[in-house]
């Protein structure tokens, strides 16, 4: 039972990171039907910026939690700027082009950003300091859930609740939903659609950067390539839940994380990816639109 709970909490932790990144894929897809393949790289850049900032702060004698918060804030700002710029230079000029063109542009940006970090930083793995402090109160539960896992779960839950509230109640959130449902009509009620798309990229990038900082601190090492696998997994999570569907991305991330953790724990860690993608194949056979994806019925 204890082993099960341990796997469960580590599965949830992984899953919530996948979910954070998957939200960026699904929001962008929902609005402009583009798979933003460079999204994983934004996550990677977030982790790198946090590493650099924490290195500097450590030299100046800051400690633990304060570094984490500050590094996360800087990483989020950086990632937001990257996400915004990415959309401006790689996707906006292709608005109205056939769907394949921005997709190829996305793959190009992904390769470009990976190689940029490779050259500007290093091809090797860099150690990432454990920024998340060890809480004493969690000591009795340490065999089930660690401090880092608890922080990751809490931060990602808060981020997702904040996102949901933003989309449901705020003015920009309503504009995002309207644009997703009918971009043409959104323009006719006076929504600046270009701005909505920019905001969507910025929000997705912010969530990815939060994920990057948390994972860096949790796993303890990063390199230029971490965005690729995380991106593929998160994309899988988004498809699993029903691409374009926000609760679906969260559910998909959790299902993926849990099935990976249980496969690794009960079978062999060599099989975790086999299991993760096996679940994807199975769900897509049974429910092609994803877990929460649905063909919306509409009267005409």
């Amino acid at each position, binding site marked *: 039972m204890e082993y099960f709970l341990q796997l469960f909490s580590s599965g949830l932790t992984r899953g919530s990171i996948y979910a954070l990144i998957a939200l960026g894929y699904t929001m962008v897809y929902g609005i402009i039907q583009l798979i933003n393949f460079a999204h994983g790289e934004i996550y990677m850049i977030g982790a790198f910026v946090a590493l650099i900032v924490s290195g500097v702060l450590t030299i100046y004698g800051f400690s633990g939690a304060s570094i984490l918060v500050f590094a996360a804030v800087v990483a989020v700002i950086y990632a937001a700027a990257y996400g915004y710029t990415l959309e401006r230079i790689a996707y906006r000029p292709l608005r109205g082009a056939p769907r394949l063109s921005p997709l190829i542009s996305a793959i190009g940006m992904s390769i470009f950003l990976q190689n940029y970090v490779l050259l500007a930083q290093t091809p090797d793995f860099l150690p990432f300091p454990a920024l998340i402090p060890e809480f004493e109160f969690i000591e009795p539960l340490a065999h089930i859930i660690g401090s880092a896992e608890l922080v990751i779960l809490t931060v990602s839950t808060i981020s997702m609740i904040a996102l949901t509230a933003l989309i449901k109640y705020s003015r920009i959130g309503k504009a995002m939903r309207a644009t997703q449902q009918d971009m043409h*009509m959104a323009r*006719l009620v006076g929504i600046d659609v270009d701005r909505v798309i920019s905001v969507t990229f910025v929000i997705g990038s912010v969530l990815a950067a939060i994920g990057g900082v948390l994972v860096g601190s949790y796993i303890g090492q990063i390199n230029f390539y971490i965005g690729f696998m995380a991106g593929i997994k998160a994309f899988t999570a988004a498809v699993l839940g029903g691409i374009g569907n926000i609760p679906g991305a969260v559910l998909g991330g959790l299902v993926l994380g849990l099935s990976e953790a249980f496969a690794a724990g009960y079978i062999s860690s060599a099989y975790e990816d086999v299991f993760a993608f096996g679940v994807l194949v199975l769900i897509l056979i049974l429910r092609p639109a994803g877990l929460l994806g649905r063909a919306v019925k509409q*009267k005409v």
Partner: protein
Amino acid sequence: MLKVRGISTYYGNIEALHAVSLDIAEGEIITLIGANGAGKTTTLMSICGLTPPRSGDIEFHGQSVVGMKPDRIVQMGLVQVPEGRRIFPNMTVLENLELGAYLRRDRQGVRQDLDYVMDLFPILAERRTQMGGTLSGGEQQMLAISRALMAKPKLLLLDEPSLGLAPLVIKQIFEIIRKINQEQEVTVFLVEQNANQALKLAHRGYVMENGRIRFNDTADRLLNNDLVREAYLGL
């Protein structure tokens, strides 16, 4: 109020509008009639900035709107109810109406206008929490008109509001259009295939064929024009 001067609009290399000119004065109901594919919808889309014309000029209140972004045009009071109604399907009736007022900052005024449209179409008040996509065609048309009114239009552009609706509902919608024109002092530009009813409602009319304006006269005279009667009224 609105002056359209010789606009030509293209889709790729296809010229959809050939030097179209129109004039709409404040307080009027003007109709534009014509067959399928004549260029009526393109005319509206050109005015709203979604398919800007390649040549010619469009002036609204003396200011050229060609090349302006669609949201700036809406802000000026030029608001369209598009063909097919285009209700946001997964948003409630209330949210659809709120989006109509997206660019407005006067909360008080928005609340008043919300009451006004719910008064105009009581069915919308009844269905306020229902998803837009689940409404009937007639209800959706009422919602689409109300959503446009929430933007406080000076000139309301209506694209085939009668499309696919039962005769009784069409009658109700046309009466409301007249009411809006008189009570709210909203100028109306009505694009219709239903020429007979449109001309009975309008003060003046334009007849469009193959991307050009063929006739332009008072509605009464168009109703009695032999060519129009034969081609569009089926008499």
